[in-house]
């Protein structure tokens, strides 16, 4: 069974008198363990799609089944729980809490979920090692380089061991070299079975994915997997 099933998803924004169809009747399936790149021109609806997949936004019409369960009808608190346990986010602008150290930022999802401090410490220590941040544990975000910040953010996204990672232009604020490092890290996660969905403007990065989706005006213009584009 597919990890993600979208059926007839619409998302409209009202801008004054005009209605923008950010997503128009979108049908899509993504299998567990897949590596998907979402591409397309600016304003085509990539971020809107990712926000919907991450349960940060609700569709105006259509159904979204995550792991076979309709998540569009869940209450906000139930959706928060799904975000906490099933989904990890990586943002273009890192979104680290400036007053917390790298270790505390990585632990934040566990802290919010009420996981015991001892368990948190154990997992953070492991994550710091996995992402080569051992010597940066007590550094605040403004004492870290861009690449280190994104590594902290990825460590944070994986600390709850979610089956799905959503990354919206994760290398957009990084130079080519550090960008590649970050991509390798994400691909490493995918190699261990995590479903990875990356929004990117970079064709080279998009080409590395197993499956490419190209969007235009809220529609799927092209799907390398050959499913009939909706």
């Amino acid at each position, binding site marked *: 069974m597919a990890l993600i099933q979208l059926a007839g998803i619409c998302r409209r924004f009202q801008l004054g008198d005009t209605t923008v169809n950010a997503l128009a009747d979108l049908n899509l399936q993504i299998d567990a363990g897949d590596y998907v790149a979402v591409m397309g021109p600016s304003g085509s609806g990539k971020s809107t799609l990712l926000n919907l997949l991450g349960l940060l936004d609700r569709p105006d019409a259509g159904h979204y089944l995550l792991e076979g369960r309709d998540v569009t009808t869940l209450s906000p608190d139930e959706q*928060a729980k799904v975000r906490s346990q099933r989904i990890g986010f990586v943002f273009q602008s890192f979104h680290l809490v400036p*007053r917390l150290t790298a270790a505390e930022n990585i632990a*934040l999802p566990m802290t919010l979920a009420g996981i015991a401090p001892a368990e948190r410490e154990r997992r953070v220590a492991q994550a710091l090692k996995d992402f080569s941040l051992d010597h940066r544990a007590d550094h605040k975000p403004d004492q870290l380089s861009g690449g280190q910040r994104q590594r902290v953010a990825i460590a944070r996204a994986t600390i709850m061991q979610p089956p799905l990672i959503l990354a919206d232009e994760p290398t957009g604020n990084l130079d080519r070299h550090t960008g590649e490092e970050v991509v390798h890290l994400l691909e490493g996660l995918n190699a261990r079975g995590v479903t990875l969905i990356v929004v990117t403007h970079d064709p080279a990065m998009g080409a590395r994915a197993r499956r490419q989706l190209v969007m235009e005006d809220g529609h799927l213009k092209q799907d390398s997997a050959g499913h009939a584009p909706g």
Partner: protein
Amino acid sequence: MRPADLFRFARDAATGYPVRTALSVLAMAIGVAAVVLLTALGDGARRYVVGQFSSLGTNLVIVLPGRTGTGGFNPATAITNTPRDLTVDDAAAIKRAPAVQRVAPLTVGTSEISTAGRLREVMVAGTTHDYFAIRGFVTAQGTPLPDEDWNRGASVVVIGAKIREELFGNDAAIGQLVRIGDRRVRVIGVLKPVGQGLGMNTDELAIVPVSLAQALFNTNTLFRVLIEARSRDAIPAAREQALAVLKQRHRGEEDVTVITQDAVLATFDKLLGALTLAVAGIAAISLAVAGILVMNVMLVAVTQRTGEIGLLKALGAPARTIRLAFLSEAAMLSAMGAVLGYLLGQAGAFVLRQLFPVFPAYAPNWAVIAGLGTALGTGLLFGYLPARRAARLDPVQALMKH
């Protein structure tokens, strides 16, 4: 989220913006300090007055000649007009009333006291042995007035500490003869120095038997009759009985005024209590103002940290956790302000007590509890609105503000 984590998160958020935090803590502190200090002043004044009245003696009932106060129109006194004298025999008659423990007649006037060429003005109180017990006067040397026939007092005097010093310096005073007006009297006692109180300063007083004072001032009437009731509960009975005795002796006319210390005290107590309450109310307004400031600070915090709130939501924080986080921060600000204000207020009251030792400037417990409670209450009340706003933010919009 675990309470300890919530606490740490709120604390780190508060200390992350030191100026903002310091300002709201200070505002709250000033409010609480104002409540503590002003009620300390108000209640101090109340206690001071009550204390001074109590020092007049316990269970005291006082008879004044003439009808004063709000007794209403009395045809009898309207005709006779001049009140009958209050005499030593009247006082002696009151002494037989069952609810009465002690009675002391009192006549006062000023005269000159002199010895060996030293002379000064003196306030002379003519009274009896029991006066000392009623007023709680204690002699430092010698004895009080003897217990004797009120109408044939001995030629003796008990003098205040300051009189003794001025007349005798370092010499012994007991047994010495002094002249008061045209009488020669023997010093039998010296009062313990007490300093300034409400009413007379006993350090500059000369106490003689009432018959001697009446002869000295050529009068038959008394200034006051002091009555000590058998107990606190017997005060109204003592008052009624004294009135009845005097009415009977004065041919059915109620031509005296009887006041109880309790009534006077209760009036002052109420008056100054109300004053304290009013002052506390005014100070509480500053607490409300501080609460509004905390609200503004928290609203600014929500705006400043919109991106962070979006992130928390993305990481799976339910609305409740976000509300609690901001509410904890508001509570923390007001609690810190309240504690700081409490310390400041108590320190201020302490300084007051050091500067004016006679003034018992202690904040009453109710005011301290109410002040701290109001501070926390307003903090939470005004913190709720920003916390709710934070919890309701749309995560996508919030994440874009970074």
